[in-house]
């Protein structure tokens, strides 16, 4: 059967809708110098110390969130799979909660619970707030991270691997780090890149927690400059593309969707 | 006049020809099996009959009418698929009624017909259930009922039992055949299980590599295969290489021993190597059997299979297997023991020349 005309029209219209904003943004980002196309906007943006600082900050928080998230999720998914399958519905429900409770509501709750007059005054110190932001990002990424790891664990035969390792006399930290983690590396990596893509430009939580992250920086530039935001949008698109490309590369496949 | 005819049917996918000009005439009410190894083109042929694939060339006629260019929904054919193709969103009754509803039959007629069909497949009480509430075997029976409800001219089945376990397969194939006989519907049954084909069919069409190798009754196919492929695909067959010593008297050399065939070896000349087929059940040990051919060899292997003992005998470069009944009072022969294998001239099937 040959392709009919309808699907082609759908695909072409879809492509136009998705490519035009990218082309327009790129074209706009080149117009900084009057009368000629130049990469001036990129030069300014990339040379801006605030750009470098905020990007580094967000990247660090993202990496922290990824490590924390993996350490939190892998043992849980492992134990649920192997020892306590009764807990599965509860754990899955919890991991879906971040999709149910909007990010802005969560951070509102954090600000109330961890403010200076509470039992755990995290927002009192810079380190404490960074920790809070990291935890907030772990929460945001929880549904995706958990699903990736859980799928990865299902694909390997956890029980056999564990029993084999135990019969060879491995202790549980060794089972976790030397047997289970390497086998779900692909899943963990795709969860990690997805987390990075979600977190790197996150605005709401960083802004409300008053941290100098990349998202609030973007917003600030957007409010005050003309051409630099377009350049930043292109950079952000490339970062997202790189994360998704890496997921594909590692065979992650069909992960999706972040919170906004 | 045959009921269903395929005339030099050819199918090419891209630049690869999968079906190389098939000719076939199926009589009204006949049950024909397509038997062949995976990828030989059974499904493709069936799908062309159904109308899901357009033949590259050739014609398909049903009841004298050329249907080659008709769409599937205009052909009035019933089809049962390999995997469970029941509509999951409908109850069993609705599944069976689907074709009738589409044909705008009255609801009284539909109810009556659905009831009939459920009784035909011996599942009168499952009408209200959904497919996922049925076992695999029950689902295939419902699929059969659904295909038959529209009173099709032809019934096509594509390996309908291959996803089921062995016990159900046997009982269900008997049931399918019984239903087919009762309705007298012209049926094509695709399978790669030779036992299924042998036990169910009026005729078997053995396919290989997009061609029909042999068409015949199960008796003919099993006992008189015409090609080496058919002989080796149908049944466990012993194949010996024999040197033609004298083609008129049918004298053949098996390594350094001699045997005779019942007929002349027309077309073969002295020194040619021929493939000979011998069925395990045609062979016996010792001279007592009365056959005029004897081969001396040694026992290579003995498999005790319960009521039957399968013995492998080696003559030089050739090996044959034969079956003897288990006799509780005499021990089976042992490995290494010299034996004589006896068979009649008629038991030798001369196949095509072996590929060098």
């Amino acid at each position, binding site marked *: *059967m040959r392709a009919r005309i*309808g699907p082609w029209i759908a695909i072409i219209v*879809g492509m136009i809708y*998705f490519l035009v904003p990218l082309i327009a*943004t790129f074209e706009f980002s080149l117009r900084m110098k009057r009368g000629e196309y130049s990469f001036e906007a990129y030069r300014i943006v990339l040379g801006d110390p605030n750009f470098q600082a905020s990007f580094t900050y967000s990247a660090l928080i993202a990496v922290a969130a990824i490590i924390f998230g993996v350490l*939190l999720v892998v*043992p*849980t998914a*492992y*134990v649920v799979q192997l*020892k306590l399958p009764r*807990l599965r519905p509860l*754990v899955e429900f*919890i991991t879906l*909660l*971040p*999709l*149910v*409770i*909007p990010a*802005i509501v969560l951070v*509102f*709750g954090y*600000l109330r*619970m961890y403010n200076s007059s509470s039992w755990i005054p995290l927002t009192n110190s810079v380190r404490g707030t960074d920790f809070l932001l990291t935890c*907030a990002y*772990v929460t945001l990424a929880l549904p995706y991270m958990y699903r990736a790891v859980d799928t990865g664990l299902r694909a390997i035969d956890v029980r056999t691997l564990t029993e084999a390792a135990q*019969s060879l006399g491995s*202790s*549980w930290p060794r*089972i976790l780090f030397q047997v289970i983690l390497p086998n779900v590396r692909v899943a963990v990596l795709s969860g990690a890149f997805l987390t990075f893509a*979600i977190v790197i430009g*996150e*605005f*709401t939580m960083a802004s409300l927690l008053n941290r100098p992250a990349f*998202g609030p920086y*973007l917003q600030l530039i957007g409010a005050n400059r003309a051409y630099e*935001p377009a350049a930043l*949008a292109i950079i952000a*698109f490339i970062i997202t593309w790189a994360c*998704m*490309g890496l997921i594909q590369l590692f065979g992650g496949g*069909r992960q*999706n969707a*972040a919170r906004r | 006049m045959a009921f269903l005819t395929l005339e030099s049917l050819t199918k090419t996918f891209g630049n690869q020809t999968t079906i190389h000009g098939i000719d076939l005439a199926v009589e009204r009410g006949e049950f024909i099996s397509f038997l062949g190894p995976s990828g030989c083109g059974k499904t493709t042929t069936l799908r062309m009959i*159904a*109308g899901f694939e357009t033949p590259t060339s050739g014609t398909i006629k049903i009841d004298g009418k050329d249907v080659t260019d008709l769409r599937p929904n205009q*052909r*009035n054919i019933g*089809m049962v*698929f390999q995997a*469970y193709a029941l*509509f999951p*969103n409908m109850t069993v009754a609705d599944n069976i009624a*689907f074709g009738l509803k*589409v*044909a705008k039959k009255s609801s009284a007629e539909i109810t009556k017909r659905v009831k009939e069909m459920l009784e035909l497949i011996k599942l009168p009480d499952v009408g209200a259930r959904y497919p*996922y509430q049925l076992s695999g075997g029950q689902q295939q029976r419902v*699929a059969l009922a659904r295909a038959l409800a*529209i009173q099709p001219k032809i019934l096509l089945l594509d390996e309908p039992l291959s996803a089921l376990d062995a016990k159900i397969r046997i009982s269900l194939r008997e049931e399918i055949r019984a239903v087919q006989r009762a309705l007298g519907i012209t049926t094509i049954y695709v399978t790669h299980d030779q036992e299924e084909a042998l036990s169910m069919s009026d005729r078997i069409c053995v396919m290989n590599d997009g061609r029909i190798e042999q068409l015949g009754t199960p008796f003919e196919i099993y006992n008189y295969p015409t090609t080496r492929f058919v002989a080796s695909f149908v049944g466990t067959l012993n194949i010996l290489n024999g040197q033609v010593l004298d083609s008129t008297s049918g004298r053949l050399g098996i390594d350094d021993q001699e045997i005779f065939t019942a007929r002349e070896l027309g077309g073969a000349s002295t020194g040619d190597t021929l493939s000979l087929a011998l069925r395990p059940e045609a062979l016996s040990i010792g001279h007592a059997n009365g056959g005029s051919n004897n081969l001396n060899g040694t026992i290579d292997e003995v498999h005790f299979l319960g009521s039957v003992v399968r013995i492998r005998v080696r003559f030089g470069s050739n090996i044959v297997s034969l079956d003897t009944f288990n006799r509780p009072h005499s021990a089976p022969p042992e490995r290494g023991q010299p034996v004589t294998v006896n068979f009649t001239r008629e038991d030798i099937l001369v196949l095509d020349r072996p590929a060098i």
Partner: protein
Amino acid sequence: MAQTTVEIAPSKPRALPLTWLGVVPFMIFALMFLILPAGYLIIGAFQTPDGSFTLQNIANLNQPTIIKAYRLSIAISAASAFGGALLGFLLAYAVVLGNLPRWIRPTMMTFSGVASNFAGVPLAFAFLATLGRSGLVTALITSIFGINIYRYGFNLLSFAGLTITYLYFQIPLMILIMTPAIDGLKREWREASAILGASTWQYWRMIAFPILWPSLLGSFLLLFANAFGAIATAYALTGSSLNIITILLFAQIRGDVLHDPHLGYALALGMILITGLSNGAYIWLRSRSERWVR
């Protein structure tokens, strides 16, 4: 062999810490960063400043600004979810069943993965550069058709503008969700219906659509919740000028613009209810459709 049996024994008591390690930190984390913060707001919504029970906060939601904000949020979310679901479904359909060249599908899926995650502030920038007052498309339309769309009432900083912008991540998200569902439509169903005499339209009406509708409706709800909780794009696009519920809550958290912290809690409670209901319905519908499409 003997060694093995000896080795198993001491590893037995160590199995317990693993179970402990797997469950306890996770539960503590969930309590601290999901359940208690949400609970705090929910309880706060039913409390007076001095801690006694009241329904007054909920009643106070009934004021024009708040009602309008909820309305606009729901309208934008519903419109972008509907458009996203419809167009995303069509594209997923074209990709899976359109007999298009092979390379289209993986390209489309990768691109959807990127676009569904390309949101927030940069997305706003991209649409400003496209459909803003000096955007490329705006300029193109002006020069080709001689129409300045802004003079005809179009505004990116509005219901229509935000909906178009949100579609940029809603459509790809729908494609990602629906492609597996359409894949789940077995070829045999289509062929069985055809051989039983049904037309393509009858197949869609009686089989494919009934099978897909739980996923379709469920995806719509997921997209709705997705847009409803979004803020960054809208905020970067419009500053605080657009009165949608997330921006109102943002302003309330920043500076207590409602002059009543507990009213803020009630606002959050309303949001949790709306996203909770639509997500809950999504999960329920998905479990229904999974029963069929196996």
